């Protein structure tokens, strides 16, 4: 994808494009169900990643084509059948989570209900509602080398998804390294939440206006679309 093409990306595609540029060639990555798997559509040239799935497999490559046979015993973390690349490996759940907690996964990408400036993540339980469960998310955000949250800047009602301090039940405490939205890319630092980059045509002030936390805004904020 050329830089000019990338400049045209919007919404979830832009978020996926930028998030994929946090991966290093050869990384083992765990991608949450939904938007995070979109990162694979936007891998930069020369970057090959190994997709880990917590149900005990590394090397998933996504759903088979219509009519293509694959082994129904190979599924992703959503229970959906997936292809497995040459060099892939299967293992049992306790070793899978040993790899996860033990720091062997390079990058975990997942969505959020709410995140905060301290790097706290809430993505499994809304008070007053029956939760679907955390699955492997708590282990993943605890053990991965880097945790990235992909989210829209605001919820459907327009409320910021990034707040100063969330009071929702946590998935992980101080676990997030980066947050990527359609408006910007943020880094959690010891001093607070830093606006690292902005989307094309978006100003830091506009990002701040839709963020519920005080941002650290450097003098020269970068662009989410650049030559990587």
């Amino acid at each position, binding site marked *: 994808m050329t830089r000019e093409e990338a400049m045209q990306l919007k919404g979830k595609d832009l978020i996926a494009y930028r998030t994929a540029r946090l991966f290093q060639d050869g990384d083992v990555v765990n991608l949450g169900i939904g938007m995070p798997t979109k990162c694979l559509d936007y891998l930069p040239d020369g970057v090959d990643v190994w997709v880990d799935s917590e149900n005990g497999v590394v090397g998933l490559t996504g759903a088979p084509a219509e009519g293509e046979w694959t*082994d129904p015993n190979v*599924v992703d973390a959503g229970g959906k059948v997936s292809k497995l690349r040459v060099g892939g490996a299967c293992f049992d759940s306790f070793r899978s989570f040993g790899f996860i907690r033990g720091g062997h996964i390079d990058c975990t990408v997942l969505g959020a209900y709410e995140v905060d400036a301290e790097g706290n993540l809430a993505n499994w339980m809304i008070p007053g509602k029956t939760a679907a*469960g955390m699955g492997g998310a708590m*282990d993943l955000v605890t053990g991965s080398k880097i945790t990235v949250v992909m989210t829209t800047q605001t919820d459907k009602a327009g409320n910021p998804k990034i707040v100063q301090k969330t009071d929702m039940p946590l998935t992980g405490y101080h676990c997030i390294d980066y947050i990527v939205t359609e408006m910007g890319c943020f880094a959690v630092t010891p001093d607070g939440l830093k606006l690292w980059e902005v989307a094309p045509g978006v100003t830091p002030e506009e990002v701040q206006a839709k963020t519920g936390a005080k941002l650290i805004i450097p003098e020269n904020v970068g662009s989410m679309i650049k030559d990587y």
Partner: protein
Amino acid sequence: MAKSKVTTVEEAIAKYCHDGMSVLLPGFVNVGVSEVLIEGLIAAGIKDISVISNNTSVPHRGIGKLVDAGVIKAITCSHIGNNAVTVQKVVDGEINLTFVPQGSLCEKVRAGGAGIGGILTPTGLYTPMMDGKQVVEWDEEAGKFKFLEGEIIPDASKKRFILELPLHADVCFVHAWKADKMGNVVYRRTSRNFNEAFATAGDHVIVEAEQIVEIGELDPDEIMTPGFVVDAVVQGRALTEA
């Protein structure tokens, strides 16, 4: 002379299962689930069971069949989102639900099967998963752990862990790709999932195998669960659709 443990589903259920029992049900959504044994359990009318599983499959399949049958009184698992029937029964108070993070669930069962008194994990610290559990902190100076008492203020600089206690159950249903007649098991691809750990933590272990082979046909190095932990082997069926 190695003895065959091959039996019928009906006999295995009659011998090892009873009302009010606890049962370990490995599987991930629809893969690696012992559906034939689950159908046998329902046919035998066993009820009021406590299930330890990662999730409850999708509606009307696998563990979802037990949910439909109304025979589950309690579930310990990490996720029910794939099965709206389970969610409704939890909301209605028909099923008593306990969530455990997936990695902790697996380690708790592994500890239960391995004679370990509990495990220390950082997973779940400062989340609702910490509620009611013991938390330890490593004291570098003293060179030992101490148990924290009272309200725990989050502090990322401290080396803290939740003490997760072991889990085991009366029975475990294992789903094998191949098993020989004495219960040596080989799992296939991601259907392995929780089967290997869970197979160690049931007082009685029943294996349903897609293929039952003669003793000696499996290479000792490919066997993932050794037959000595298995009580019975029954004929299962292959998964045709995830």
